[in-house]
């Protein structure tokens, strides 16, 4: 217990955040106490701002400040192409490549019965709803985990009958990495999915 109730409360709030134990919560609270007031106000405002301004895009379910999001409302993007990902970080990763000009669809997670996540917990209905129309190709870009893989299989079985092209990311050796430093499992998988030249 801290003698000042407001410090105790701040520590309590911090330690309710994911990955933060009481020790780190205490450290953070002490840090806040030492900061000049304008800096603390900046942090507090940023916290409130994200909550007030950030929403899910009603089309692709990515985070956005405008609805629909900038990607969905950008008419220079290829609207016949949708890349399906697990979460908003994946969109950021793909956008950084500057190579992808299509649209996205963020599922929110991957199938995981153990965590109680089934198809109804993902934005799958919303995906099916979107693709009635001019979509020609759907790229399934899930994580390389068994949950990501199960989600890929689930979606491909669902989408195949609808007639558009369904593709998935290739698995292989990371660019710029030496064969000798690639872990054995990745190397083995790349060998399995080798291609003819």
């Amino acid at each position: 217990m801290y003698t000042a109730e407001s410090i105790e409360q701040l520590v309590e709030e911090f330690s309710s955040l994911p990955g933060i134990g009481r020790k780190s919560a205490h450290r953070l609270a002490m840090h806040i106490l030492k900061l000049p007031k304008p800096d603390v106000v900046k942090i507090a405002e940023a916290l409130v701002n994200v909550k007030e301004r950030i929403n899910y895009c009603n089309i692709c379910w990515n985070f956005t400040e405008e609805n629909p999001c900038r990607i969905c409302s950008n008419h220079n993007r290829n609207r016949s192409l949708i890349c399906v990902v697990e979460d908003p970080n994946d969109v950021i990763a793909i956008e950084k490549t500057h190579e992808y000009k299509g649209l996205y669809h963020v599922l929110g997670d991957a199938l995981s019965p153990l965590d109680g996540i089934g198809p109804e917990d993902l934005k799958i209905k919303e995906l099916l709803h979107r693709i009635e129309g001019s979509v020609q190709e759907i790229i399934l870009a899930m994580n390389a985990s068994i949950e990501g893989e199960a989600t890929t299989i689930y979606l491909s079985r669902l989408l195949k009958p609808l007639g558009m092209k369904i593709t998935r990311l290739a698995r292989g050796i990371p660019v710029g990495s030496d064969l000798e430093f690639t872990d054995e499992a990745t190397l083995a998988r790349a060998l399995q999915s080798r291609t003819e030249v």
Partner: protein
Amino acid sequence: MRLTTLRLQNFRNHAESFFEFGNNANLILGENGQGKTNILEAISYLCLTKSFYASSDAVVLRLGTEFFEQEGTFVSESGNENKVRVAYDKQQTQKAYFINKKSVEPFSTVIGKFPVVICSPEHNPITSGGPEERRRFADFVISQASSVYLKSLMEYRRVIKQRNKILLDARIGNMNPSGLLESWDEQLLQHGATLTHRRKLFVDGFKNILHSSYHELVGSEEEPQIEYSPFAESFSSEDDCRRLLKTLLVQNRKEELRVGSTLIGPHRDEFVFTVNGLDLRKYGSQGQHKTFLVGLKLGEFFYLKNLCNETPLLLLDDIFSELDERRSKRLLDFVGTISQTFITSTSVKWFEPFVEFNHTNRKFFIKNGSVVPEEEVIVA
């Protein structure tokens, strides 16, 4: 590979112990309960990131202390030195593993780097216990030699858990999970076939190794055998195995829904051990069980020696009290010469006639968690 030094701090009943080991046999002597097995357990932490039997890191922390640490120097056959350190802090939930001061993660990547074979009474269930004990033995041996197998095994286990959850939910909620189930079947088939195929290859090769290791101990009057019995009688390739698995999976769907768990696959495999054609579990004597276990462990040693680039360390815990004199002698005759060996015993009498103590064969006397001069320990 050799372990040249070992330092323990706050580990089990060792407050602070330091060892400089010999290149061949290292005898760890002392009365019961003095901390001999604990030293082997510490070596297990360095080689495998964990104890070979304790259920958690918290239990090996010396009572009343806040952190433990083990540090060892491995010297490879080519002369490379690796300093390995394991550190655990009561406050932190995770321990840390370092090779040459660099933190290593995930821990599974350490498996196979510093190969070790451990034979202790803790392993008795391999020959006497249920099928899961023998699966664990086989998985452990193959994983040390193949990280691809280990990865496949970890993913397979998770797939089974996920799939069982679907089956169980479906049973409780009385609904049809098809569509969902199929999303996991693909990976079940892929990993299931990989594991089954590799286990078969492993047993095919291991049979001969077991044979010769066993004969090192008992001569040729006893014939040991190991039979792998997976879900299918026989299959010619991994693809073939996958096809068979798929057929069975489809056939058993109804039953799986009734029971609420996955019924077909390598998680249900059995390995049958026999001596002179008789099932060891049903007909084996205690001596045969022990001999079989040592035979398996020596087999593991030679299997790993062939497949890894380093000769494994050999840790023998209380083996010599349970084998008869002739078998003990035969074992001693060659263990110290095939690798660096760590042997615990309450009695030095087995060893004095056969082992010449010098800088490569060393004795350590343990009392109450410390290394002490010989005079302080009464060993028969």
